[in-house]
């Protein structure tokens, strides 16, 4: 009897161990990936920000000059503020445009039409973003299609390229499909009985939307806006090709810093400030999205 109990205990612990090992093997890629592609590069980037450049060559060192130089440069803070304002404006604009689209997809379309619409929003990702931005140049330039259409109805607006509007068009092109998909997934997973209950309790359509649907899908809306902010904050292509490099953003500043003088350490400072901003924004957004009301 005692021997049998011992055997059973041993068999149980062997099974537990093998289950642990099985779970461990499946979990392993995540920490490995994070260590190789996030933690490692991040440590390298922080270390690099203290290096020196001598005769255009990176030289290991530990000096604070790069941080001091960049954080006291007015053009750095001008670029930082501009990038932040552009990114937050793009996130707000895209969220506003995406909201009615997502509501329509989630609540008014048949299942078949919904799948077709969501599929169509994924199609832009099949083409390179750079190609899409170049195409916008053709539309927005002096003799472009948009200008010709406007001229036909008597509006002479000149070229739209290198304007804040062109910048916003590029960023909406980049982020809108993703935000619509995120918002739609969030709305589709909403418990529809909540909406029925609101109607049964006498709420009108507007109250159902503002008091029931939007609060319930807040995480989806906030996460969509967060992704739009992240992509817009780090974008280089739109600022360069639709903004004409006229609106120096943090990404353009990184390119400029490296291009002249091979100042990789100073570019690392700019990159670290961007990462810190994105981390703080992401944590604050997530906290707000999942906050209990």
């Amino acid at each position, binding site marked *: 009897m005692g021997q049998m109990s011992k055997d059973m205990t041993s068999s149980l612990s062997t099974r537990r161990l093998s289950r642990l090992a099985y779970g461990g093997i499946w979990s392993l890629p995540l920490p490995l990936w994070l260590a190789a592609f996030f933690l490692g590069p991040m440590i390298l980037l922080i270390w690099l920000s203290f290096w020196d450049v001598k005769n255009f*060559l990176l030289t290991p060192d530990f000096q604070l000059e790069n941080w001091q130089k960049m954080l006291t440069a007015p*053009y750095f803070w*001008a670029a930082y503020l501009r990038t932040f304002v552009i990114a937050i404006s793009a996130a707000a604009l895209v969220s506003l445009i995406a909201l009615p689209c997502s509501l329509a997809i989630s609540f008014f379309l048949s299942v078949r039409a919904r799948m077709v619409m969501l599929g169509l929003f994924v199609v832009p990702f099949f083409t390179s973003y750079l190609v899409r931005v170049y195409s916008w140049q053709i539309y927005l330039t*002096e003799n472009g299609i948009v200008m010709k259409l406007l001229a036909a109805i008597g509006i002479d607006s000149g070229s739209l390229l290198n304007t804040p509007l062109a910048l916003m068009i590029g960023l909406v092109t980049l982020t809108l499909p993703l935000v619509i998909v995120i918002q739609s997934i969030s709305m589709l997973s909403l418990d529809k009985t909540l909406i029925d209950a609101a109607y049964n309790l006498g709420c009108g359509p507007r109250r159902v939307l503002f008091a029931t649907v939007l609060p319930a899908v807040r995480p989806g809306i906030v996460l969509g806006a967060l992704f739009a902010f992240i992509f817009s904050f780090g974008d280089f292509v739109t600022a360069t090709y639709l903004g004409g490099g006229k609106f120096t953003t943090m990404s353009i500043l990184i390119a400029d810093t490296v*291009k002249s003088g091979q100042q990789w350490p100073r570019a690392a400072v700019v990159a670290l400030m961007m990462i810190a901003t994105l981390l703080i924004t992401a944590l604050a957004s997530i906290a707000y999205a999942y906050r209990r009301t």
Partner: protein
Amino acid sequence: MAKTTLTRRALLKSGAVAAGALAMPSVVRAQSVTEMTMLAWYGQAEPDAVAAFEELHNVKITPKYYVGGEQMLALLAQSPPGTYDLIHADAEYVQQLVLANFVEKLDPSDYHFDDFYPEFHKFPGHWHNDELYAVISRFGFLGISHNLDAVSVNEASSYDMLWDEKNKDKVGHFDWHLPNLGVLSLRDGNAAPYDISGDAWAKLQDTTLSLKPQVRGFYDYGGVLSSLKSGEVTVMPGIGEWITGVLRRDGANVTTTIPEQGGIQFTESFSIGRGSKKADLARKFIQYTSSPEGQFTLANLNVFPAIIPSKVGWERMINEKPEDARHLGMFKGDGNSIDLIRKGRIHIRQLPVQQDLADWNDFWSAYKST
């Protein structure tokens, strides 16, 4: 009837023989062709530039293209000696190549200097302590490039026109501080545009900042081409025929004018990389680029056309490509490119002398950000 059996060993053996036979021509070819490496601006090792030399010497030139002299210096600093047999550089960076010991000394008698205009026999920047380190391959002038439908040659004869109301929001910049600040320094009246005092530097910054309301955008090479061609911008300071020559091939009505205040000269050259194991072949390549045939080829590169220092090369350009030669300033008589140099209207592009390069760069970032 004899029975034929194919054993696994026999199959493997015949397969190996067949693979060897098939691979033989490429092995033989690979053994006979010498490979030579070149660190260069884009276009210098494309077939239109090197095919004739490659065929003549049974050599394959493998390029590593860079963007900007500083990237070139960084690439050299990170590579062991001998990595690059040929180095193609702008004149302002040759002195730095010499000081960093990245290039070999050259023997002037090896090259066709007698064919060159006297101005290029001892080109400043290519010599150090009376020793030659680089041979000029071609050069060009930077002034005001403009769309002739919007801005005439006469209008472009002064940098002051950049501030005209007519050009508001129509001025473009090639996104590199050195040529832009160089021509604006000339507009400020600095006789040596890169060797300026603290006061002149402060004034140059004010001049540049005052131009910002006129500026449409800051462009890379592709952006410069498309914005000038589409009419997005009509005038660009600090660029030259290296852009407008390419656009004209495409039918654009553009040209480059050197204003009365003067223009900037960029200069390309070839050097032999320190520790090159193919120094003899590299020397032959530089001999080729300085020969009449090589010079004619270099004047007409697909990447962009440029002026050549060879008198013999000029003759051939005038005879065979008179229109291109005229636009490049390679014609006989007053106002040709050598005449402009002799009249003192052209200043060689160089790194700032009295300020740190980083100061100019920081100011450019601040200017863009304004």
